[in-house]
């Protein structure tokens, strides 16, 4: 388990380093604004499937996160 978490943390740091200078410009986010490019765009569907997972699976968590999208304000 320590190995898994160490790997993940290293992956996070590595990705940050590599992608910190990522070059997706604000005006290039057209594709990312599309719902097919987002994780869980439909909140009611995500809520129901999450509920089913909680009742029927022993594992918990991991599939909630914020990000992507067009970044408009």
């Amino acid at each position, binding site marked *: *388990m320590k190995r*898994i*978490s160490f790997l*993940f943390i290293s*992956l*996070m740091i590595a*990705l*940050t380093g590599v*992608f*910190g*200078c*990522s*070059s*997706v*410009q*604000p005006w*290039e*986010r*057209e*594709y*990312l*604004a*599309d*719902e*097919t*490019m*987002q*994780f869980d765009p*439909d*909140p*009611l*569907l995500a*809520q*129901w*499937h999450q*509920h*089913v997972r*909680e*009742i*029927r*699976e*022993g*594992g*918990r*968590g*991991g*599939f*909630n*996160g*914020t*990000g*992507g*999208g*067009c*970044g*408009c*304000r």
Partner: protein
Amino acid sequence: MQVTGTRGAGRPADGASAGPRRLWKAVLFIVWMVIPIERSWAIEPAQDEVEAGYNYYHGGGVTVTGPAVIVQKNILNGATLKAGYTVDIVSSASIDVVTQASPFKETRTEYSLGTDILRGDTLVGVDYINSRESDYLSDTLSVGMAHDLFDKNMTVSLKVARSWDQVGKNNDPSFGWKNFDRTIYAAGVTQSVTPRWLIQLNYELTADEGLINNPYRSAITLSGALVPENYPDARTGQAWAIRTSYGFPNGASDDGNGGIRSSIQLDYRYYYDTFDVHSQTAKITFQRYFVSNWLGGVFYQYYFQDAASFYGDRVPANQLYKARDKELSQYHDQWVGLTLKFKLKQTQWGIIHNPYIQITNSWMLFNYDNFTDPRTGQLYSQRVYVIHTDLGFNY
């Protein structure tokens, strides 16, 4: 029967909650200190929206159906208010129920209220959820924040949630109400790698304390006698997940879909906890636009876990901790689904903008490796239908 996912009563362990509370405050403090206040606005505030849906679950002797609604509205200055209402109507003749009790009907009602506030480059969200059924009461408060970095190519999110639950037992007033508390810490990083490729890494820790087992279920000894289950007072689980999403463009054709023709999404999660449950989840989702306003999707998920250390289809009578919850056994399941969505973008009917309707049909197949059906003595398996449909619009 608890349908919200478990859990039961026990003695609250107050001393153990002080540490996490301090940690949470420290996190908030650090983040607030470092955030630059005047900058380009970042995370997109949600649009005013209404969504109403219907849920359906049927299989293994259990049927759960019910409506769900969410309403979202922008109020002054970058703050959004969200309200939700869900009802689960449960008819249960599940394997545990038919072999140890009698079939029952139950209704669970859930209300939620939340607000999202933009402050500089940060979105802060506070949510409250209240869930009620005749033998289970739950209050949950969660605080989350998301912060954009590197010109919005990276979003960092942190969330802390706390549930205070009360577990009761129908037809047994002497049982009273017992406490069950859950604390969740979640952290995630989402990175847009190219204009069509997104990666997300998530970590989530779930800490339970109190009565964790279901008070209605019994374990079975080697000699076949029913005995009460006994779980430890605490359970801590950790999940590490990676998700990635990639879009395929549609060339120069103009179909109003933002240039995406189809996309593929891959999810993987590794989970382990102090009950010695280890599980892996892998999911693939493919979506494609058809004829302008139609979006179709298909997904496949494979899940497997190995059993909790004190789980047993039959357990020695003198074993301290005993569990016969099939969700703590060794098993695997496959989940396949189809989605169809019809959406009218850039359409307005009076105050209604962009209406849509969608339906997701799915099938789950569970195969248990060390949980048997007491009526037959065979290893248990079940097939479940999960359907969700909803419609919504911006206003």
